[in-house]
Structures are given as C-alpha cells and as structure tokens.
C-alpha cells in the first residue's frame, strides 16, 4: 500500500470516527470508552505478526508480552462493555409487579 493510500484511509477514518462517535449519547460514554479499549486491542495483530515471524530471543519476549497486553484489551474490554450494557438494556420492572411485591410483603 502506498503512503498516500494509507493517508487517504486515515483521513476518511477521522471523518467517519467523528461522525459516528459524536452521535453516542452521554449516557453511554463509559461503555464507549471500554469498547474503544477493546477495539484498540487490534494492536495485538502487530504482536502476533512479530512473534509469528520472529527468530530472536528479544522479539519472542516483547512480542509475547504485546500479545498478552492486546488480549487483555480485547477480552477484558468487550466483556466489561457487555456487562455494563446489560445494565442499560435491563427492562425496568413493570409498576404492577413492583406494587404486588410490596402488597405481599
């Protein structure tokens, strides 16, 4: 890929990023951050390529640490985001049910 192609992709991605993310409501900003942490875990690909093609002790070590760091981001990021969003999508208890509970107690 030529440098100019990459810069084109980068500039377009900046516009897409600002466009899409500015529409995320404040309520969801914490899950957005943990989700972008997870997406940032894409750098693990770099670690995989380093280790996958390495034939030198130092590269084995730094590459493996980079893979572990990336995997923490990916797995931890997506899982904790899922946990948080579960709290938002939980259906509010219907009023009647809540009242019935109180009547019984």
């Amino acid at each position, binding site marked *: *890929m030529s440098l100019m192609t*990459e810069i084109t*992709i980068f500039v377009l*991605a900046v516009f897409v*990023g600002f466009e*899409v*993310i*500015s529409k*995320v*409501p*404040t*309520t*969801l*900003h*914490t*899950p*957005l*951050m*943990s*989700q*972008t*942490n*997870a*997406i*940032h875990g*894409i*750098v*693990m690909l*770099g*670690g*995989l*390529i*380093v*280790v*996958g093609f390495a034939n030198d002790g*130092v*590269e084995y070590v730094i*590459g493996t*640490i*980079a893979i*572990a*760091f*990336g*995997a*923490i*981001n*990916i*797995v*931890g*990021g*997506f*899982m*904790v985001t899922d946990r948080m*969003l579960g*709290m938002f*999508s*939980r259906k*509010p*208890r219907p009023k009647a049910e*809540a009242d019935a509970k109180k009547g019984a107690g």
Partner: protein
Amino acid sequence: MIEAVLKPGGDAATALYIVAFSLFIIGIKQGTHPTTAKRGNLIAAAGMAVAVVTTLLLDGMGNWGLIVLGLGIGTAIGVIASIRVQMTEMPQMVALYNGVGGGAVALIAWSEIRHGISLGEDFPLDSLIPVIFAGIVGSVSFWGSNIAFAKLQDLIPTRPIAAPGQQVINAVLLLAIIVISVVLAVDHESPSQGLFILLLVLAAILGNLVVLPIGGADMPVVISLLNAFTGLSAAAAGFALDNVALIVAGTLVGSSGTILTMEMATAMNRSVSNILFSGFGGAPSGGGGGSTEERPHVSIGAQDAAIKLAYADSVVIVPGYGLAVAQAQHAIKEVADELEKRGVTVNYAIHPVAGRMPGHMNVLLAEADVPYENLKEMEEINPEMPRTDVAVVVGANDVTNPAAKNDPDSPIAGMPIIEVNEAQQVIVIKRSLSPGFAGIDNDLFYEPNTSMLFADAKAAAAEIAAEIGNL
C-alpha cells in the same frame, strides 16, 4: 498446522481486514442507543475475531507455543478483571486498559526497529517515522495511564505531586525526544536501536511527569486524553505495518478519545493545556475550608426532607461522585421508588463530570436499576428546573454552585452547572459545609430555599425512603 493460508499483505487478507473494521464501525454505530448498544458490542467483537483469525492464517506464521501463551495469559487476565471489577472502579479499569494498549504499541514499535535493523537494509522513512511516533506515544500512554490508575486506585496520593521547575524539565524532555527522533529519521539507513530505547525511556519519564501533577478532579480529562493517545499510537503502528485494520481501528479510538476529551474540558470550562500544565484540580481541597466564615444556613432532618419530597409533584435528583463513594446509588433508587409510588415524577440530572470518567454516573445509576430514560443531561434538565418542586443534591458540590454563573470573579466562573438554585426548593445531602474539589464555598448552601441535611448519603437516603414509606 492450518491448511488454508493467506499471503501477508495480499488481497484476501486485506479484504478480511476491511470486513473487520467495517464491523467495528457498525458496532459503534449501534452503540448510539442503549437498546441496541449490546448487540453493537457483539458486532464489534465479531469484527475483532475476523481480524485475529485472519492474522493467525497468514502464510509463514510460526512460534505457535508463544502465541498461545500470550493469548492465554491476556485472556485469563481480561476475563477475571471484567468479571470482578466494580462499576465504581471503571475509571481505573479503563486507565489500565489504556496503559496496556499503549504498552503493546511501544513494544511492537521496538521490535519493528529491531527487525528493520536486522535486515540490514535502508529503513524506509514511511515506516520508520510511524514507528518512532508509535513508540513515543505508546510509551507516554503506558506510563501516564499507570500513574492515572495508581491515583484512581489511591495507591499514590490523588493530590497534585509536582517537583520545582517541572515545566522546564518537561520542556527539556520533549525537546530531547524531538531531537532524538530527528536523528533516528536522518540516520534511516542504519537507525540505532540504543537511541530508540533511549527514546522509549525519555517518553516514559515524560508520561510519568505529565500525569503526576494532575489532581483527582481532572481525571476524566486525563483518561479521555490517554484514550485518544493510545488510538493514535495504534493508527501509527498501522502505517508502520501497512495494516488497514490497525489504521482504521486506531483512528476510531483516537476520534472517540478526542471527542470525550473536548466534552470533559468544556464541562469544566477549562482548556486541555490548562489541565495538563497547572495543578488546579484538587489542589486546595484540603486546606481551603478553614478560611470560610460561618454563614447562615438552614439545616433539616430526614423526616422533614421526606415530607418535602412526598408532597412534591416533581423531584430532580442531582448525584455527584460523593454518591458513588458512599455507595448510595441503591438507597437513592429506593427513595425514587417510594416517591414514584406516590405519583411523584423523579428524574436524575447528570452533569458531564459527575463521575470520574465520561458517563460514569450513568453507569452507576444503571447498575442500581434506574431506567436510562430518567437520566437527563444538563442541557435537557436546566430549563425544567424552575418547574421542579424539589431538587435533591447528593454528593455533588461544585457542579451546582451558582457562583459559576453569577460571580465573574469565582475560580469556576463560566463552568456549566446544573441550575438547582432555580428549583422551588433544594435539599443538599452532605456531611458538612466543606468545599468541593475547586476549594471554594458553594453559595447554594446559603440560599433561602436550600435546606442542608448533614449526614452520610447512604444512611440519609435509606432513612428518607423509610420515612416516605411511613407517611
């Protein structure tokens, strides 16, 4: 080991990377509404799976034992952390994730330099420059985020820690980093690995020194900014590795971090450079309280508060970080439930910096089962304030101080606030009249329609809920 292999840099691999980043964008787009966000997160995760599997299928990949080891360790830590983390600890967790993300980029940049040198050929500038950039920003993010984590976790004092002449030291460090980068780039035929490691070390020191002097109140801005940095470093790594998935994903993260940084800075009415280069946030919070003279205020008990609330038509609850510290979310929700049973409309007014990171308070309230429809943003709730019978301020302080609007000489003048002083009556649940992070007295406490309820937020809320139930 695997039959179907993809050519590194080939069309098939690139096409799969394009699928991956498209899924990221679709996933984030679904994240614009609470009901679709969970599915969006799964879509983004699917994109990540495509990207990882594509890379594992590249022709010539080896060292599978190490790859499995790295994946195993990272996955185990990620799973345990995401299950065990408390919602109040989310800022620390995001700080830590920012840190390991930046660290991964710095390590990858380092091995790219080693790899390039070992080939013994001219290092092309269009990959050397991104590698240098990724190394610097990755290292700054890693160390800066670790300090932010340590501050949020109370491992080191949250008050600003500054050495004399710190600005000069930072400037010298930055200058040294720029000079070394230029030397490396000029010497692209055989860049020195030693110089590159020195660059990583200097960036590490800079990351530490920039975050150490920043106070606890400014953490939302710092976390967002470091988030943006890690994104940029990933995009730079993408340029170095000629990988579209890294370029696009990194840029998305960078945009997100940048937007959040700007929003947080606006909400505090301060510029990012002001936050980074002056220790205002949290500086005087300890000693500032002593000088304030005793001003007349109204103090009430839980029973009076319960009566005021129970006979209101509309109530707005204004939570601050003190609510989370006191773990009072669930008790406050009980108060709201009791009021709703009596037909009172209850809404929550969330200031953008109510928590310790963007949107933090919303998550804490969602955890307590508060429906997201009742969480109102500042711009949305302020026009409703004059029609609100009772505003209840719990654990919030500076973000309700009318001095921000009325007193041009106030240190927080111009900061957007939740205008609780416009409500018919105000109840402030607080331990004492002590000032907040900004270290200034809150005029709200002395207004004639404000009643102070001096108590621990959780205990007071539980008592009020019980009193309302007995009415």
